């Protein structure tokens, strides 16, 4: 490695270390992780309370109850908890990423750092890496909480524990990877918007707005005819579901919140479309930050 490359790598490492210093001392980091873990646990508790009420009298209610109970069993901890986590983690990670970048503008610290000779792309790179690492940590923490809740629940009702072998571990790892991947478009969208608008609040609001409102647009577009009806194929949620099904579809009949049904586009297409969105948002954030005045 040439001297120049070594120096560049050293500076990049410095930027990553500085970002780590900030993130680990930021109260928001721990609030986000705490809120996320609490939401996962709360959801398991709510579902457990629902199951305690019994299946009800009608056949459809019974099927729902069985599906829900099965979802909470340890055997289904990978597909179910990760799908549950996917929803809450997206909310938390969007807030984390948007404030991480937007606050630098709000506090005007971005100018202080770049005027000291830190390369602009190093600064954004460190932010992007922090966003990915935070997403992984968030999912791992949530998965631990879900595993504990699910184990307790499985033990209580004598449900299926599933296998304990290498294939299961591989399932967990690929499941976590898939889930991280489907959250990243929203993380980088938040990063891009906070760079464009130089504000945390607007970026987080817009990214969460897209996350929640997308379903309405998909429903409207699905009702249309012609080429417009194909547009939802490129929206996030359709492709997120396609990827998340790879973690295991365990109900063909629906059956409760966060239980995915079968159908939809194949996983590879979901991966491709989401990868395209991620690339677009990351490149957009880098380009915008690189080209534009830091302070006006």
């Amino acid at each position: 490695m040439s001297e120049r490359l070594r120096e560049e790598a050293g500076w990049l490492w410095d930027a990553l270390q500085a970002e780590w210093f900030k993130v680990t001392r930021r109260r928001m980091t721990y609030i986000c992780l705490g809120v996320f873990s609490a939401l996962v646990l709360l959801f398991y508790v709510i579902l457990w309370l629902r199951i305690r009420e019994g299946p009800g009298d009608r056949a459809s209610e019974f099927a729902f109850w069985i599906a829900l109970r099965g979802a909470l069993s340890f055997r289904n901890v990978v597909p179910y908890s990760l799908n549950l986590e996917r929803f809450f983690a997206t909310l938390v990670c969007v807030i984390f990423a948007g404030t991480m970048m937007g606050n630098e503008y709000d506090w005007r610290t971005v100018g202080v750092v770049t005027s000291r000779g830190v390369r602009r792309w190093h600064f954004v790179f460190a932010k992007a890496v922090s966003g990915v690492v935070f997403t992984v940590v968030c999912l791992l923490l949530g998965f631990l909480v879900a595993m504990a809740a699910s184990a307790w629940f499985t033990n209580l009702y004598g449900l299926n524990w599933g296998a304990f072998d290498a294939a299961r571990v591989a399932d967990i790892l690929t499941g976590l990877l898939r889930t991280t991947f489907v959250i990243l478009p929203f993380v980088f969208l938040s990063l891009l918007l906070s760079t464009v608008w130089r504000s945390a609040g607007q970026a987080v609001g817009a990214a969460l707005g897209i996350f929640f409102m997308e379903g309405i647009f998909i429903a409207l577009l699905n009702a249309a005819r012609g080429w417009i009806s194909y547009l939802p194929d490129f929206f996030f949620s359709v492709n997120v579901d396609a990827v998340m099904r790879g973690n295991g579809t365990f109900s063909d009949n629906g059956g409760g919140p966060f239980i995915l049904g079968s159908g939809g586009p194949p996983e590879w297409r979901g991966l491709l479309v989401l990868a395209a969105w991620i690339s677009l948002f990351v490149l957009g954030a880098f380009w915008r930050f690189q080209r534009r005045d830091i302070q006006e």
Partner: protein
Amino acid sequence: MPEFVVEARGLKKAYGETKAVDGVDLVVERGHVFGALGPNGSGKSTTVRMLLGLARPDAGDVRLFGERLGDHAPELLRRVGAVVEQPAFVPYLSGRDNLRLLERYTPGAGEAGIERALDRVHLTEAAHRRFKNYSLGMKQRLGIAAAILNDPELIILDEPTNGLDPQGTREIRELIPELAAEGRTVVLCSHLLHEVEMVCDAVAIFQRGRIVAQGQTKELTRGHTRLEVRVPDMEAAGAVLAASPWAANVHREDGSFFIEGAIDQGVEVNRLLASQGYYASVIRPVQQTLEEAFLEITGEVTSV
């Protein structure tokens, strides 16, 4: 041949219809304490932002240490320490941790350097407190500590005494020549004329996005010197002066005559008055202050 630490040629920057900087040429020699003087909105801070790579010029060229900023920005900026406008730091970190953070971005100073910088601005005792709980004066001090942290060759301070109490202001004014004495170049942006006059050996005067005067502080004020003459019988002495070779340059103000451009002719003026029987109680050269020079050059009074 003087070595220029900062060279800006034909700098222009507009925000929409507003020309913030309109053709600024600026040179700062190594080792100087250079004052960028001008009212708020005159283009000083925008120029500084372009010098620090925070804003891109619409036209013109910036060189630091003889090299084009655009080509070598990170390498060159690591030799610069700056406080632009209000000091900006991470609010939830302490003063010391904010310096540690900057040290992680651009390593070199180490813990010892951090403590030295804090000590130099008398912030050691408050270094453990969160930045958001600092007073404006403490924030300014921390800004200066950050600027000097990495032992920079060039220090750019934008309104560094804003919010400081008189004691703090005096300490900063004493610190700036100390920094220069260590071989650093200091660029001080200020709208406080007496502040610039006290510490700067060279000055550029900004007005409406342009530099309207630039040079050594002494040169700028030397061109505006005059001789003050006070005589007990002002009326009669006035008639004598009106018939003298300096008649066109004499004017009366607050009980004194002021003769423009006659700073080294005190003896001749005294001799003339004495020959007519009028004896001066005061004859002295009056150096115009930078404030007076500034007002004369810019014609602006209100905002400075």
